[in-house]
């Protein structure tokens, strides 16, 4: 008999209206420790908005968020900042700090938020950059890095805060095809290392091999969810399979 695991993150009934349009219609999900859940769905489905509502970069109109047993009171600034430190976020456009080199990009929040000493922050940052394979690039500035390297710096920056969960918002969508692999392999290492993650992506092969659960979003709702085996196979007759096979057709046509 297995004990039911306690979710590390719980999100309930998130609603968001932006510019008069209902972007999220009462979305709920929960995440156990070590799980990788993958959000797929057409653009405009609300994947990005959902991820940004989870750490209140976009304050949801309605809905509640729990990390472990604590409900996040986003009106209390101090609680909100403490919560965000524990939730790493990776953006499609990397969002590195352009005036800081790779090392400083990773170290700055350690110093300003975690109040580490300059030396301790530096050592920690170097270790994180080595972990994503950029030990030899620490003095380079964002403008001197390739897209894949930038995204790996941004992953190192998030990991340095030692987050309990990570939210990854289409981390490979802005990359040239030949650079996608290096970023996916870092994410694969994280997943295999037991990091708890929600990943929005269009990388179906990656999803199939690593996701614990697939959440298919459309029009602001999660309309299907289940294991990749159940959802992403031809005999599932699922909306997810339909969507993915059309993505694959595009790829095969070389578009």
């Amino acid at each position: 008999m297995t004990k039911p695991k306690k979710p590390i993150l719980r999100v309930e009934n998130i609603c968001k209206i932006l510019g008069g349009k209902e972007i999220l219609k009462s979305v709920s999900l929960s995440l156990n420790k070590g799980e990788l859940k993958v959000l797929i769905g057409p653009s405009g489905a609300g994947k990005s908005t959902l991820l940004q509502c989870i750490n209140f970069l976009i304050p949801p109109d309605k809905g509640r968020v729990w990390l472990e047993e604590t409900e996040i009171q986003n009106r209390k600034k101090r609680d909100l900042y403490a919560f965000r430190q524990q939730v790493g976020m990776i953006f499609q456009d990397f969002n590195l700090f352009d005036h800081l080199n790779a090392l400083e990009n990773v170290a700055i929040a350690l110093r300003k938020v975690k109040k580490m000493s300059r030396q301790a922050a530096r050592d920690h940052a170097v270790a994180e950059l080595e972990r994503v394979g950029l030990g030899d690039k620490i003095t380079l500035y964002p403008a001197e890095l390739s897209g894949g390297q930038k995204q790996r710096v941004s992953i190192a920056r998030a990991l340095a805060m030692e987050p309990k969960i990570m939210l990854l918002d289409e981390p490979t969508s802005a990359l040239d095809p030949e650079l996608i692999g290096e970023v996916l392999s870092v994410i694969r290492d994280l997943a295999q290392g037991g990091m708890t993650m929600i990943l929005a992506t269009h990388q179906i092969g990656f999803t199939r091999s690593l996701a614990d659960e697939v959440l298919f979003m459309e029009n602001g709702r999660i309309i299907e969810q289940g294991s990749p085996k159940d959802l992403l196979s031809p005999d599932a007759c699922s909306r997810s399979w339909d969507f993915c096979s059309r993505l694959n057709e595009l790829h095969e046509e070389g578009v």
Partner: protein
Amino acid sequence: MLDALTAIFEALPYLLKGAIATSGIVIGAMGLGLVMGVHMAVGQVYGNRAVRWFVGLYVWFFRGVPVLVLLFLFYFGLFAIVGLNLSAFTASILVLGMTTAAYQSQIFRGAILSLPKGQLQAARALGMSDIKAIISIILPQALRFSIPGWSNEYSIILKDSALAFVLGTSEIMARSHFVASRTYHHLPLYITAGCLYFLLTWIGVRALLKLEAKVRIPGYSQ
């Protein structure tokens, strides 16, 4: 001709003291404008409605009234009303400083708005407060991008500082005028005054160009 050269030569030490006063006014005013302008720009971009409204009103006023009027208004009116008994030199710094603050705030505001929005998001996602993010992430970049506009503002304020003459500040223009009206060598003295302004502009603009190169972010095309 020789007369004129002698007049310039004799007046030069006296005029150079004026150049020091001019530099003092400009450095003081630009410094005050920098501190006020940065706060106003941040307030106008990130502040609540009341702050934005106040900054808007301030900028509207100081950009709408001639500097000469402002100098008179404050020196002979407003400073006295609030009980401040200031020297002409200090009053010139304050008035020019408050004026350039209005212009500088718009230079900084433009620079802040030109930064990609995502960086603030990333800073917030790391647990930074908005104040920390603005200090550590936004301003270091915005100030870099403001240097060309700021250098322009420097050259404008340097020349506006000649207006401090009307309050009786003993700067380049006041001293040239004084010597010229005593010796009747008007042309050579005003040429010298012009040259001093030219030189100060050149030095300042060059220094700012150097600063711009020094703080350039590697990999960014110029």
